[in-house]
């Protein structure tokens, strides 16, 4: 059974803290994604990575950075957490386009609250 695992289901952090959200996939997928989801705004792409050490900005990268040192792990970093980063964060992975199946698999999400 395919799996994308996010390290925490719920997190509470203080303003100004450095926050790490971890995501691990066991499907040997090249592509990995980080989204945030807020009421009424749908899913918004923060960053994605199409290979180890490769990353590209999504629509809302400000205030975030990412790290992909190993194929199976994609980390989202909030350098200095702020209250407007309180949100549900979702990680996903997929095979590259051109392969037989480009379905994206999502983790269960991390609900981050910054106080």
């Amino acid at each position, binding site marked *: 059974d395919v799996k994308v695992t996010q390290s925490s289901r719920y997190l509470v952090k203080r303003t100004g803290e450095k926050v790490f959200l971890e995501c691990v996939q066991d499907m040997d997928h090249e592509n990995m994604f980080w989204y945030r989801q807020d009421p009424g705004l749908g899913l918004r792409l923060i960053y*994605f990575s199409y290979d180890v050490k490769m990353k590209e900005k999504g629509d809302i990268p400000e205030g975030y950075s990412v790290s992909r040192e190993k194929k199976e792990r994609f980390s989202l970093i909030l350098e200095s957490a702020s209250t407007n980063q309180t949100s549900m964060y979702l990680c996903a992975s997929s095979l590259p386009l051109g392969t037989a199946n480009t379905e*994206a698999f999502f983790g269960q999400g991390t609900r981050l609250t910054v106080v």
Partner: protein
Amino acid sequence: LAKTTQPISMDSYEGQEVNITCSHNNIATNDYITWYQQFPSQGPRFIIQGYKTKVTNEVASLFIPADRKSSTLSLPRVSLSDTAVYYCLAFSEEDSSYKLIFGSGTRLLVRP
């Protein structure tokens, strides 16, 4: 990237067929169309993907007309458990990668 437009919400009753239409007027030649379903407090789940004409699986059908400027997700005989948000995506390969861009989705409510 093709921008997609869907209705914000739809209501239906158990046992009915539900059709959700998505507009993607500037879809590119290499773009695929994919639909995802999301339940509260869960990540989205892939439903179906197509390029043109009709695709059917055990969950849904996807109709794409010849001009590919729109697509319709068809859910046969919905049940209460089909209440969810449905997202339409058009994506393509850019350079060596591709982006999955979600819109706001269509919130489907199935009533008894």
